[in-house]
C-alpha cells in the first residue's frame, strides 16, 4: 500500500487488515496519534485523510492506498498550526494533553471547510473528540480565536 504520509511517499507491506492507528504508532513511530479507546468513540487517534478528519482506529490499512494522510507530527510544521498553537496557549486549553492532537486536527478540518465558524459549528466539529479535563470551553474558545487571528490563512 503506497500513500502519502505527512507529505512523504510511504510504502506499507504489512497486513492490510491492520489498523492505521497501530501502524502509525508502531511502525512509523508517530506516537502523537493517541489511542484512547480503539472503537471510534473518542477521537484521540484522529488524523486527516484526503482532507477529512477520520479516526485512525477505524481505518484498515487496505483502504489507504493512494491516500494522503496527515498526523499531528506533519501538521505541526505548518503555519496554520502556529496560529492554533498561539490560540490554544492563550487560553491554556491544553490540560492533560491526551485529546489535544485530535482536537488540533479537528480544528484544522473545521476551519479548512469554514474559516469563520459559529460557536455551534465549532462544537459540532469537535463533537467526536472527547475531553475529560477541560469541559470543552477553552478548546472552543481557542478555535474561535484562531479563526479570528488567522487572518485569511484558512
Amino acid at each position, binding site marked *: 500500500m503506497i500513500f502519502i504520509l505527512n507529505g512523504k511517499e510511504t510504502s506499507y507491506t504489512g497486513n492490510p487488515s491492520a489498523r492505521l492507528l497501530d501502524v502509525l504508532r508502531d511502525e512509523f513511530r508517530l506516537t502523537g496519534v493517541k489511542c484512547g*479507546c480503539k472503537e471510534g468513540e473518542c477521537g484521540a487517534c484522529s488524523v486527516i485523510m484526503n482532507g477529512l478528519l477520520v479516526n485512525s482506529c477505524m481505518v484498515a490499512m487496505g483502504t489507504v492506498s493512494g491516500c494522503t494522510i496527515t498526523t499531528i507530527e506533519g501538521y505541526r510544521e505548518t503555519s496554520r498550526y502556529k496560529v492554533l498553537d498561539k490560540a490554544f496557549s492563550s487560553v491554556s486549553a491544553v490540560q492533560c494533553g491526551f485529546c489535544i492532537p485530535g482536537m488540533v486536527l479537528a480544528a484544522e478540518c473545521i476551519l479548512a471547510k469554514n474559516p469563520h465558524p459559529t460557536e455551534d459549528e465549532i462544537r459540532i466539529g469537535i463533537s467526536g473528540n472527547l475531553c475529560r479535563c477541560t469541559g470543552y470551553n477553552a478548546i472552543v474558545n481557542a478555535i474561535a480565536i484562531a479563526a479570528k487571528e488567522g487572518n485569511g490563512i484558512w
Partner: protein
Amino acid sequence: MNIGDSVEKKDHAPKMGGAAIYAADYPVEGVLFGKLLHSGKARARIVEIRLPEIQEGYFVVDKNDVPGDNNVNIVKDDTPVFARETVEYIGDPILMVVGPDEKETERILKAIEVVYEELPPVINIRDYDTVFFDYNYGKGDLETAFAEADKVYTEQFETGYQEQAYLETQGMIAEPHPNKITVHGSMQCPYYVKGAVERAMGYTKEQVQIKQDTTGGGFGGKEAFPSILACQVAVAANKAGKPVRVIFDRREDMEFTSKRHPSLCTYKVAIKNGKITAMDIDVLFNGGAYTTLSAVVLQRGIICASGVYKVDNLMVRGRAVKTNLVPSGAYRGFGAPQTFFAVEMILDHIAKDLGVDSLQFKLDNLVQQDDATSTGGMYHFPVPIPQMVEKIDAASDYWVKRKEYAKPQTGRYRRGIGSSIFFHGAGFTGSGERDHIKAVTHLHKFPNGNVEILVSNSDMGQGLKTTFSKIVAHELDLPYDKIIIENPDTDRVPDSGPTVASRSLMTVGELLRRAAIKLREAWVDGEDQIVEERFKEPDFLIPFFLDKFQGDAYPTYAWGVNAIEVEVDTYTGITAVLGAWGCFDVGTPVDLNVVVGQMEGGFLQGIGYASIEQMTADDKGRIRNNSFSDYIIPTSMDVPKLNVIMHVEKYPDGPYGAKGAGELPLVGAPGAYAGALEQALGEPINKVPFSMDDTMKVLQRVRV
C-alpha cells in the same frame, strides 16, 4: 505582574504538537508486553490454573513470583499483587502473561483456563455482610432536639458509580537493573508507588526508582491503582529479567479499575421554627472487594455530611462495606459529592414542605465565620456564600426563573432551575499532612541562575508545573523560563506528598513560595545551591483527632454555588441543560486560565455524574458499561452554556491566598442538577444519575 495573569503553560508545547511522551509512547525494542488475566468470577476459590504450552521467552507471573510481600501497600493490607487463594471481584488480577510479541502474549492469555470453585458473591450494597470501616461522631443533644422538633424528615438517597474516564488509560513500565528496579508510567503519586514496589520486591528505599510519565488525566483514578499495576510489572520484570510494559485497553480500564464509591445515605433532619436543629445521618459506601482508600473516602464523606449548615445537634455514622465488585477508590470529591448530594436534596424537599424558597432556606441555615464545623473545629475564615449566590443570580437570573418554573407547567417541554451551596475541605483530612505526609520540597539553583523545582507532585493536566513555576519565579523575581520542573523522579525529588485532596497548590505551592524566599535571601551568584522547606502545620489549627473525629478536619474550605437550568422533553425523557453556572472560591487564582480550566472541567464531570454517566453491575457482578459507547461522558455538544465565575477569599496560609481547588467544582453539580430536574418534573428525586428512563417513569406516573 499579577500572580493570576495567565502565562503559556510549561507543558503546552510538547502536548500541543504531539511530542509529549506518555507511557504507551515509549519505544518497545527489548521490552516485553504484559497482559493481565483478570478473574471472570465475582467470588471464587481458584482451584487450578491450566496453562497451555508456553514457548521460550514467554512467562507466566503470579503470586509465587512475588519476591517480597504479596500485598499492595494502600492504607491496609488486603489488596494482593496477584490473587491469593480466592478472587473477590470480576477483574481481580490472577496472573500476568509476558512476552516479546503482543499478539502471542494475548493468544497465550486466552488459552489459559482457570478452574474456579464459585462462592456466593455479594453484589448489592444492601446485602453486605462485611463492614470494612465503621465510624461515627457527633455533638449536642440529638434526642432532645428530635423530641422538640416541629417536624422530623427522613429520606434515603442513592448515588451510583462514576468512572474517571481519563483519556489515557492506566499504563506502567518496569525496568529491572541489578539489585534495583525502575518503574515509570501514568500516576499521581510517585512515592505511594515507590512504597508499594519496595514492599512487593522486598527492596530497600535505595533500590526502587519511580518516575512519573506525562499523565493523561487522573482525577483520583491514578491515586492508588497505579501502585497495584506497578507492583505487578515490577515482579514480572524481575522474573523475566527484562523490561515489562502493561498498557490497559479501554475496556479493561473501565471494567477493572477503581471508581467512585456508590452510596446509600439516610438523613433524618429536625426542623424547629423553620430552622435546622438536628441531623441524624447514616452513610453507607460501597467499598467493593478490597479496602484500598475506603477509610479515607468515608472519613471525608461523613465529615461533610451536614453540608454548609449550622447543625448544633449532629450524629453521623458512616460505614464502608464490602461487595464483590471492583474496589472503589478516589475520584475528585472523594466522598463529598455523595453526601453533599443528599444534604442538598433533603433540604430542598424540606423547604418545599415548609412552603419556603429552598435556596433562601439554605442561606438562613448557613454557617458563618467562627461557627463550629461538624467536627468541633472552626470556620476560621469568611464564608462568602451569600455574595457568591448574588453573583450566580446576576449571571443566571436564578430567583426569577425559580419562581417562574414553580408555576404549573403543561406542554411538551418543562423547565426547572436548581441550585446548591457547598464546600470542599482544602487539603488532606485531619492531621495527615503533619503526621503522615510530612512534605519536603527542594529548590536547586544552578550556577547559571536557573532554578529547578524538586517535588513529587504530578502535573496530570491541572497545571502544577505552571503554577509552581510561577510562584518560584515570582518570589525570585526571575523570568518564568528560568524555572525548571520535570516530571518527578524519586531518585531526584523529595517526598512532597501525593497529588490528591486538592493539596498540591495550597500546601506544596506554599512550601515552594517559602523555599523561594529562603533562596532569594541566601542567593549567591554563580553558586550551586539547594534549599529545603518542610511542612509546618498552621498555628491556628484546632488539632484533629481521627479516633473521635474532633477538631479542624481541614485548615480552610473552598466554597461553591451552582445553578443549573434544565428543560425536559416529556415525549422522550431527555433533559437538556440550558445553562450551568458555577461560582467558585478557591482563594487567589495562581493562574486564572489554569484555575478556570479546572473549574469548567470539574463542573462538567459533576453534571455528567448526575445525568448521563451510568454504570451498573449485573447480578453476576460484571460491569456492563465498559466502553465509551456505553459509559456516556459529555461531549462538546452536551453542555454548551457552562459558565464559571470566580470569587476570591484569600487564605493567608496558601500561596498569595490560594487554597485547594481541584475537587471543589464537581461537588455541587449533582444537587443543582437534581434540584432543577425536580422542579421541571414536579416530583422529588432521591438518586443520581437520574436517567431518561427514570424521568420517563416519573412522567408516566404523573400523567396517570
